[in-house]
């Protein structure tokens, strides 16, 4: 089966690769383009560790058909920091001990980023809803919720 050409913008850079017709976006990002930010956790849409932004909206890379991303903007946690300057969410996650093993962290950050882009001053309930598709097995959700709420109040948080 012939591979299909695919082009999209990944974290602000144009990228091109070839994919199997039924490849998912997660394998394409990780194995094809070497962006190991999104993780594999379940392959079935229950854990959220592969969450990425597609044209600013959160999507699960493991369930996204790669070719459906032709010409679109993909953003992952790998591109979240501005050079040496961390995104306010990243700072807040560090300050609030919002990670233990770190495996859910990229997905959590992306889900939170999608929330703050649309809703810069979310309520606690809205934060909980925003990360309801992301599973953390180590820390518990409290430090993560606290970090997102703190980031929302930090200067520069609206930078998506």
């Amino acid at each position: 089966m012939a591979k299909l050409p695919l082009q999209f913008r990944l974290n602000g850079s144009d990228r091109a690769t070839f994919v199997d017709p039924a490849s998912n976006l997660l394998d394409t990002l990780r194995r094809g383009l070497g962006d190991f930010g999104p993780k594999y956790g379940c392959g079935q849409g229950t854990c959220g560790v592969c969450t990425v932004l597609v044209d600013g909206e959160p999507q699960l890379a493991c369930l996204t058909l790669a070719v459906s991303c032709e010409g679109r903007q993909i953003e992952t946690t790998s591109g979240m920091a501005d050079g040496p300057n961390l995104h306010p969410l990243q700072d807040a996650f560090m300050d609030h001990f919002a990670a233990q093993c770190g495996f859910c962290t990229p997905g959590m950050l992306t889900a939170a980023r999608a929330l703050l882009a649309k809703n810069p001053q979310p309520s606690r309930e809205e934060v909980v809803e925003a990360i309801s598709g992301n599973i953390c097995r180590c820390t518990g959700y409290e430090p993560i919720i606290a970090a997102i709420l703190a980031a929302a109040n930090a200067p520069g948080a609206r930078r998506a």
Partner: protein
Amino acid sequence: MATMEMRKDLFADERDDNLNVIGKGVQRQDMPGHVTARTRFFDDHAFDGMLHLKVVRSPHHHARIRAIDTSAAERAPGVKRVLRGADVPVNKNTLLSLINFGKDDEPSLAVSKVSYKGEPVVAILADSEAQALAACKLVRIDYDPLPAVFDVEETLKPGAPVVNETYPGNYFEYHERFDHQKLRFGDVERGFAGADIVMEHRYQMSPIEHAPTETNGSIAAPEQNGRYLVHSCAQGLFFALGTTAKIVDVESNQLHFIGGTVGGGFGGKVDSLTEPLAVLGAMLTGRPVRFVLDREEEMLYGSPRGAERIYIKDGLMRDGRIVARHIRSYFDAGAYTRLSSYAAIKCTAHVPGPYWIPNVASDIYVSYTNRCPSTAMRGFGVTAVDFALEVQMDRLAEAANMDPMELRILNAYRDGDMKPHRRAAKNTALVECVQVAAEKANWPLSEQAKRASSLIGGGAGERSQIPATQLDARGQIGRPDSRNGPVTQVLPAGTSRIAPSKQPVMEGARDGRATPTQVPRYEPQRPAAPPPPPAYQPAPPPYQPASSYSPPPAPPAPPPPVAPAQPQHGAVRFSSVFGTRRR
């Protein structure tokens, strides 16, 4: 950030005042990597020409394998190699064989029979994951289903299907002789006879899946000089290295394991579930090989915390004192031995809970069933029995018409109390924990309970003594089936029994082996010294099983210190496998 309360009123002499880290916020060194997604987990490594390994699993709980046909799979697109049991150099292993504990019983790939649903039979290596998955469907395995057993007690009954041929009695054999872990202290039957209330209940816990967000997996790649690089999710990296070296039959210095960054483990990543086949695949193909469990495999076939069934029988006085406790428990090992054998040891070390009870007995079994092999998980061996014990404590409190907090304070260990394991309790703090919990919960405690202290009353009188231990008609301690029989011998107070020889003294013997009766030998044991609070009592010499792998006998314990002992810093550990104490 949650605030931490430092209570300086309790155990002030236990702790230095100049703590630099505890109670303060310190940034973790791995945090910047986590929040920038630069932390590299095992799967975050790129290799050219990497193959993907998928396994074909048994759809049966228990079945004989008549034939395996992999010819169609071998011809499938992208398939580079198909592995079967015969390809695995050492196709039988048990995890703790690295420390000479237990017999090799689990194949990497099943050959003649499968003993649980999901057991790996054939491995496929292909250029892509999709090709490997497609080829898995082409493997034809002819099974002859066998009767299966899933219950931890049913499996020990005569006539139960033999789950694991290495242990034909369906129980783990400790030191190749004992069918369970046993603890005897005093005389529980006499305790029950003299108790106001005797209460027995059954408790049960289902298996629990760790469900780490990162599933088990590894990548193995050929390196120079005949070495293999392995990116592993293992929680015990050198354990995984040793296990892999054994199974693929190479020197361990040929394996270069990289790990330490684990996407959640909780005990579920100690089994080397993927490393041996990944390395074998890399050896046989010369290509990097990635073997990652998918979520369904992780949930159904990654080892869980094992199921347990626990019976607790207590003798209680109306004033709330527990005078006898007998615990019988069955650990579900699943089909093979991963770490359930160790769980039973930990359980035995934990009974009777944090309470001083003058008569204690426990019989902890490890049963094989046609279920997924069980393993470590956060306090395994202890959590379920703790659940059972604490529910039982509440029931005892109700029976004695007593406040449950007060019942716990009344029965809690004090420093200097002799534990059934023949060691003096030290650094006990249950009394204080309950007091603080009651205070925080606005739970009223009596003045007497409020005044209680772990430092007061411990080791007083019989509380520091090792009582006489009842022996049965054959001179064995507490065979469960003869506990009520005539008692002909009593192990004198202050003595401990030395295992007589390496000859088998199997109990039950439902596998048809002889059950020789051994006359036990005794050796005098140092009488336990009276408690000298606040100094710490050195433990009496540990019980030494006379087996091939026991360390040399420990030197006699030094005399109790006269001056108050220095607070202990640094870990003092009791190795329950070897029965030794080390720093």
